[in-house]
């Protein structure tokens, strides 16, 4: 059982490490892989909260967007350092999540979802209106990811698509590693407990609201990191990345891939991105089809792709 898990893990990493090489014959290109990786990270960060704690946050794109703007603004005004930009983005997303989390965790269910949506929109609105800082509707431009120079190791992530991909994969590995580590810890088990039966968790002595707040904050940090990386993909931060429709996309990726599975959201992101790209290239009404996709997945495939392969539970 343990060895089977290790084999699966090794296979996943092999696929990720070799992506620039097996994608090209299939008609893909490295930048697409980078995009999928970053969006997959965002979906996994959301799923940390949604799938593993059972908390429905539908405004999580806000922290993604905050990460993007944090990184962009850092590169534009503070320092020409890519690692710093990523950390800045992560901190911005995480800290805002920590603060807002205190307001939100008192409620649960649909009320919680509504409030997360509304709060997410606040940030969207700020990004839109504060155009002197954020560039408003046009988004934040005028910054670019900087080549990395660690003395012995130099990576031209600015112009070399493959270098950038591997850099992103490295960051991805760090964040995903942290996520997995936490989920396997006693704290992670309390998260799962809360998802499985909140009342029982409470009656085991778990201060549920506090634990949800911690999980929420952690997922916002991860989200911020993903957002920061996304800003670096196109050297651009988009206010639409903060809109609740972006949140909806992330939730859909998690659901499509399988919410109860750790790697599911990454798979969901891959499918969603490829599908959306394809649809928008063949029809101008791609939006209806994406909407239809949402409807069909909810009605017929709610457990997602990897849900089919989960051990069948009672």
């Amino acid at each position, binding site marked *: 059982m343990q060895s089977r898990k290790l084999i699966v893990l090794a296979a996943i990493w092999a696929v990720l490490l070799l992506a620039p090489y097996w994608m090209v014959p299939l008609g893909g290109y490295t930048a697409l892989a980078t995009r999928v990786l970053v969006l997959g990270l965002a979906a996994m960060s959301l799923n940390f909260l949604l799938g593993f704690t059972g908390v429905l946050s539908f405004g999580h794109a806000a922290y993604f967007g905050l990460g993007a703007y944090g990184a962009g603004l850092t590169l534009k005004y503070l320092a020409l350092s890519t690692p710093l930009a990523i950390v800045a983005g992560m901190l911005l997303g995480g800290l805002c999540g920590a603060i807002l989390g205190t307001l939100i965790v008192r409620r649960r269910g649909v009320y919680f979802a509504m409030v997360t949506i509304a709060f997410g929109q606040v940030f969207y609105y700020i990004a839109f209106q504060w155009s002197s800082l954020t560039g408003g509707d046009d988004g934040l431009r005028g910054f670019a990811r900087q080549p990395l120079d660690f003395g012995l190791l130099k990576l031209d992530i600015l112009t070399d698509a493959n270098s950038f991909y591997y850099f992103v994969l490295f960051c991805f590995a760090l964040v995903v590693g942290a996520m997995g580590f936490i989920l396997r*810890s006693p704290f992670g088990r309390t998260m799962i*407990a809360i998802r499985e039966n909140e009342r029982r968790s409470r*009656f085991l*002595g778990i201060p549920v609201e506090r634990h949800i707040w911690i999980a929420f904050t952690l997922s916002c940090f991860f989200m911020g990191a993903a957002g920061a990386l996304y800003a670096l993909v196109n050297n651009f931060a988009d206010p639409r990345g903060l809109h609740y429709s972006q949140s909806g996309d992330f939730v859909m990726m998690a659901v499509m891939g399988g919410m109860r599975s750790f790697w599911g959201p990454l798979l969901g992101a891959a499918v969603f991105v490829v599908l959306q790209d394809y649809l928008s290239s063949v029809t101008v009404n791609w939006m209806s089809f994406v909407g239809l996709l949402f409807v069909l997945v909810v009605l017929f495939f709610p457990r997602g792709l990897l849900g089919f392969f989960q051990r069948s539970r009672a």
Partner: protein
Amino acid sequence: MNVLEINNLTKRFGNLVAVREVSLNVAKGELCAIIGPNGAGKTTFFNLISGFFPPTSGTIIFDGNDITRLATHERVARGMARTFQITEIFPELTVFENVRIATEVADGFRLRAWIGKTQTAKVHQQVEATLKLVSLETKAGRLVGELAHGDQRAAEIAMALALKPHLLLLDEPTAGMGDQETYQITQLIRKLHRDSNYSIVLIEHDMRVVFHLADRVCVLDQGRMLAQGTPQQIAANEAVQAAYLGQAA
């Protein structure tokens, strides 16, 4: 030494008085059964003790401390563990995993992102010991949701025991069980009471169970404490008979 002292506890929901000035003392190591007709307020009483909601008036003293205003998880931390009429467990986790979560919380690890090898081993040992106490050690790897009703209840009790409680609150532990399972659970509770000396308060409808287990019986009727005494005394009490028979009309 009283592990639990309840003084004039009252709970109103708007105009409805669910629990009316109930007082009760539970000594250490005692097993007290709460009985009464349906709607007497027994579960509301339990909810008040375990902190599900605050009382309208009255006090609850636990181990000498006033816990009347404390939240549920704080009461649990002080040593109060509860099971529910409809079993509250983590159905899609294994028996082992269920009890492990309880054990880790009891050991103070709930916020830890990492526990070392020795501590992990200690947790494992504790889980195994708890499972042995409720005779579930052979089913440790099974999903709790797939177990028979009696075993699920035993698992729930195991989770409560893992919290190292000073007081066990068992809400209708034999609810929905056939004779065989009722016997199984009753034996378990008896063992916990006689051998391990747990202080237990339980709500029961099944009089055989009550007579088999209880040191003391308290009868609730329409929110009030109607009578307290040994099982024999209660059985002979005319007011109690009237309360039950009156309901049958």
